[in-house]
């Protein structure tokens, strides 16, 4: 801990380019890390840097060990006073326009920050390497990255079912081809009927869900009870054959709520869910 506070200008020992294209140099491994996104908190713990995490957001609840880390507030437009009070030598932020000011202000405070965009499996792989390098857990970061890279390079599994992943019912919002949930489905044999939409998610008309006629409606659901989502009881949704037939798959939120190093586990769970419902 002796070197934690010293910030004398020296040639950086590590230098990485983050997902916003900024070059981030550190003079040594980051020992006090504040993570401002649930996905990066999970990744930090996965590479073995959990004990170095000194701050997290209210929503960073995985893994369970993360709950012992003090909360510094929200991840978007964060409370910089609370962040600075933890004396971090590295702050990890999610790449979002609402974090632009925070990044500039951290620079002015002389606190190093790294901006990550974890949207797809390749992003998680790249960021595992990056966080591994910055926290002194290069080997673990690399092996997670290789695992995820091989996973996303796998050919698509033979489609066993056609699925629409519904994230909101009114207006209907579905997962498109630009989401990791689409990737997980591709590997698990669940063909996304809205794969043709390039966005991560999009508002669509209920009529197109009905006419594309998926075998299953999938919902990302935090509740452990697999009760029917309430939209399935609305009359207009009964026009979708899968809803009428009760073909609903519940993807647990802890595993499917964000792209994570547990992608292989998620693919296996997805495939099991498809089998279990047939």
């Amino acid at each position: 801990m002796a070197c934690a506070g010293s910030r004398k200008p020296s040639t950086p020992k590590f230098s990485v380019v983050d997902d916003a294209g900024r070059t981030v140099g550190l003079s040594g491994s980051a020992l006090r890390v504040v993570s401002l996104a649930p996905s990066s908190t999970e990744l930090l713990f996965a590479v073995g840097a959990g004990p170095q995490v000194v701050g997290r957001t209210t929503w960073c609840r995985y893994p369970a060990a993360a709950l012992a880390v003090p909360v510094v507030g929200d991840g978007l437009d964060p409370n910089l006073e609370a962040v600075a009070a933890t004396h971090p030598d590295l702050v990890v932020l999610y790449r979002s326009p609402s974090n632009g000011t925070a990044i500039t202000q951290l620079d002015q405070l002389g606190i190093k920050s790294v901006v990550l965009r974890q949207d797809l499996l390749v992003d998680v792989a790249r960021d595992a390497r990056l966080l591994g390098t910055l926290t002194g857990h290069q080997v673990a970061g690399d092996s997670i990255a290789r695992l995820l890279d091989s996973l996303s390079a796998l050919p698509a599994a033979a489609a066993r079912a056609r699925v629409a992943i519904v994230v909101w019912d009114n207006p209907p919002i579905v997962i498109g081809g630009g989401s990791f949930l689409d990737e997980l489905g591709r590997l698990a044999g669940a063909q996304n009927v809205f794969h043709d939409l390039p966005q991560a998610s999009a508002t669509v008309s209920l009529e197109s869900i009905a006419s594309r006629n998926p075998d299953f409606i999938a919902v990302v659901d935090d509740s452990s009870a697999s009760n029917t989502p309430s939209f399935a009881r609305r009359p207009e949704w009964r026009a979708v054959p899968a809803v009428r037939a009760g073909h609903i798959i519940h993807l647990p939120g802890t595993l499917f709520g964000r792209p994570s190093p547990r992608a292989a586990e998620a693919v296996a769970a997805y495939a099991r869910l498809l089998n279990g419902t047939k």
Partner: protein
Amino acid sequence: MKNAGLVALSLIALALAVILGPTSVPLRDLIHSPIVRDLRVPRALLGLLVGGALGVSGAGLQALVRNPLADPFLMGLSGGAGLGAVGAIALHLSGPWALPLAAFLGALAAMALVYRLGLVAGATLDPRILLLAGVVVGSFAAAISTAIVSLSEAEQLRNAMLWLWGGLSGASWTTVLVMLIYLPVPLVILVASARPLDLMALGDEPAAYLGADVARVRRRVYLAASLLTAAAVAVSGVIGFVGLIVPHIGRLIWGHRHRALIPVSFLGGGILLMLSDTLARTMVAPRELPVGIVTALIGVPAFAVLLRRWVGARA
């Protein structure tokens, strides 16, 4: 002639809304297609009813407060409905009708509060206080909603906001039926107030000399117009521009007499919303635009053209 044209136009808009959609359904299959029967037809009818309710509500409120800027959502109802919806989601109220019911109750609560504030000066609703109270109550409700949203996990509540921006994707035969049962009472009240509303355009005193019970008419018109808006916001969120622009278009063509203006605003609102929703569903299919954007994109240029012709004809 004008009237026949308006009726014809509403039938054309209704037909287009049923024939066109993101999925191509051949004309001869139209009757048998479950998509048309269960989704398109109720959605078109709901567009007619909601657009009509908003048009009439706007016409009534503009006459009531004697302000051309009055809009069904100016009086705090959207803020109240939003708070209801956000509250329902934050409290995890589930059930297929939780959200619309909560929004409806929120709108009614805002209406009651604004009404009470409007009566501070006595039994006559003061239009200026009514407007002020509406804006204040709306901002207050919006502030509470924003506080809830910013303190909760954002995703779900951001979606609640999307719902509030308005859209007809919640349309079903059930919602159409509910509206058909609900709408006649406030509509009849407004139609019955047509003559006193005409008199009130002359000013409160002349209206009273000519036999209008100004205080009573104001209260009735405010409540009936608000009840129309509350139902509209419950089934379809906040759809802007219909209630603002349609009554003005009606006045430009049909004049200021409310006996004509109220039915014209109903059909005009219905036409604008049905056409806008057809475009919202088909322009970027399978994706969908928020219908409030399309009502503005169609309504504003239509209004500008009419205004120029009207002003030109008078000069």
